[in-house]
């Protein structure tokens, strides 16, 4: 029983981490229908910025995330204005290629700045845990989980309860209609992209104290975040959180009770299952568009 509980705890915590890493991608796709292939690069760039603040000024990565979200948001804004907005007018499909190119450039720049060797932050809690009876709750994972919950709730509140959120919803569902009531979709898109990029600061901070990373670590995380977004239903923040949890729990239980080797196949198996049984995603209602497709 203890083994099962421990596996569930580890699974839920790492699932929260997955959800946290995916927030920006979920937002960008859900609202703007842009598959941002540079999401992993944004994430690792945030990790490096948190690492730099921790290394030079001793700032805790979680606190550093509050600082890093500003330059990351600006970076997102610049990327949108210079690349995404221009390409969307030509062919929205080109944004995938363009963001992929951005990721490659970002990786090279990060390698030039910090080199190819692994780095990571080691705040006092990085290898510590709360011990409750025979159960272990790693502090770093717990903090990342709480960050994930906070970021998900904050973004959900922005989308559902603010004027910007209503503008986002209007612009994403009916751009022409939004224009008629004074909402410029491209301006909303820029704001969304900035928020999405800025939110990666929190995922990057968590990554910096949970794992060692290099510039090309972005490749692995892009795969995981795409899996979470597909499982959760494209654009659904609660869905992404649920998908992260499902993924983390499935990996943990597979590792514990089936085989370590099989845990690598879990994301693929889950995607196949969800696309077969519930193609709109875990927490997303099927739309007429889904039904037609």
């Amino acid at each position, binding site marked *: 029983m203890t083994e099962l509980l421990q596996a569930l705890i580890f699974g839920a915590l790492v699932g929260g981490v997955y959800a946290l890493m995916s927030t920006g991608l979920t937002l960008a796709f859900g609202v703007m229908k842009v598959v941002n292939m540079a999401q992993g690069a944004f994430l690792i760039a945030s990790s490096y910025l948190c690492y730099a603040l921790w290394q030079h000024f001793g700032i805790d990565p979680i606190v550093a995330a509050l600082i890093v979200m500003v330059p990351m948001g600006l970076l997102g804004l610049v990327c949108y204005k210079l690349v995404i907005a221009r390409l969307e007018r030509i062919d929205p499909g080109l944004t995938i290629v363009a963001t992929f190119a951005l990721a490659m450039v970002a990786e090279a720049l990060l390698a030039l700045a910090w080199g190819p060797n*692994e780095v990571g932050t080691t705040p006092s809690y990085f290898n510590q*845990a709360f011990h409750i009876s025979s159960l*272990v709750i790693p502090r770093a994972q717990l903090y990342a989980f709480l960050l994930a919950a906070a970021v998900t709730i904050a973004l959900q509140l922005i989308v559902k309860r603010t004027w910007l959120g209503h503008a986002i919803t209007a612009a994403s569902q009916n751009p022409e209609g939004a224009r008629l009531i004074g909402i410029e979709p491209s301006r909303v898109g820029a704001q969304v992209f900035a928020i999405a990029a800025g939110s990666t600061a929190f995922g990057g901070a968590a990554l910096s104290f949970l794992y*060692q990373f290099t510039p090309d670590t972005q490749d*692995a995380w892009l795969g995981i975040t795409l899996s979470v977004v597909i499982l959760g239903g494209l654009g659904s923040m609660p869905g992404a959180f649920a998908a992260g949890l499902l993924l983390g729990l499935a990996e943990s239980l597979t590792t514990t009770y089936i085989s*370590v*080797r099989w*845990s690598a196949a879990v994301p693929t198996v889950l995607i196949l299952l969800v696309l077969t049984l519930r193609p709109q995603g875990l927490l997303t209602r099927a739309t007429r568009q889904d039904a037609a497709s």
Partner: protein
Amino acid sequence: MRFFRTPSSRPRTGRGATSRALAPFATVTALAAGLCALAGCAPASTSSSASGPITIGMSLPLTGSAADVAKAGYQGYELWASQVNAAGGLLGRQVKLDVLDDGMDPNQTTTDYTRLISQDHVNLLLGTFSSLLNAPASAVAARNQMLYVEPSGGDASLFQRGFTDLFFAQPGTTTSLPDQFLSWFSSMPASKRPTTAAYLTQDDPSASPAISVFVSKLQAMGVKTVYDQTYDPTTSNFDSIAAAVVHAQPQMIIQGSVTDDGAQFARSLEKLNYSPKILFQTNSPTDATYPSAIGASNTNGIFTAEAWSATAKYPGNAAFVAAYTKMFGTAPTEDAANSYTAGQVLQTAVDSVGNLDQKALAAWLHAHSVSTIVGPLTWDSTGDPQGSLMLAQWQYDTLQVVDPQTAATTKNVIFPKPAWSS
């Protein structure tokens, strides 16, 4: 033990890149070699001038995903060549390196070595880095009957192709990695030895063959296996794995780690506050970032194996470290030492034979021992070195060589491993 290792998400360039990955390149190699044969390529020694500099050809991944790491290997070759030339050269002729860039692409490696032989008419060859690249490169050399000394590429499959001109310039391959540890382990009184062991390895040729040897040899010594799992190279979360290992309560944990997976697993053990009597990890503990990744004080007592140590007391090693540091302003890495060693092997053979006859050089190396900065090297008929890697242990912030005694930097062994500090 570091054989041109790169971060985990990069192409595996270590002691072994996957054998599966080699198959397509073998085909390309065969085609290239066939074309070369049709074009009338001959062994370089017969077509080159007997005067002027001796050109030594090599193709290195100077650009691409592993470019920064390749730099040290190239510098090791540069240092060796400069020292040879300062001492009067090889056979009285200056040495000139003919270096091409393969961008970490095995197909380009095949092209480069074919060009070095058929167009540049180099006199001698030296190897590149990683099993992935050395597999096709050594095949080109073999087809052209040229000696091929490789600084890395310890995947055992490279030495199962029947090549007689291939020589690995390291003390041992992956399968001999456990030798020194097993020797030390068996020297302990049976009553003090751990009786249970957990084995965990990344699915990688630079790690899993060694762990298989550990399992079979330790079981033969009466150590009960309580956990034995292989994980995918993409694995990043080790908490659940560590929990399963801890659930089995092993007294000894042996991990076939390749890059940061070793540090990640150790961090998970720290969180679980589980410290086995022995923790042995391949590769990862020699990583420069390992101490900071797990906490410097937590490294105490952790074992690993390494091909080269800056402090090992082999002839010429201290001088190599000093010369490299002076020339490049930084301490040498294991990759730099390995390429320097390959140069030493080639130099000794040429000096001993007295000419550049490739077959004679290979025959001499098969019959003799060569003194290098990684210790004396001898090879079997396939070029597989007949030695073993050194057993090293982190002791108070320093990675000390424990065995063999000829290279040991300390007589102390920390056992059992101390508990994790916070």
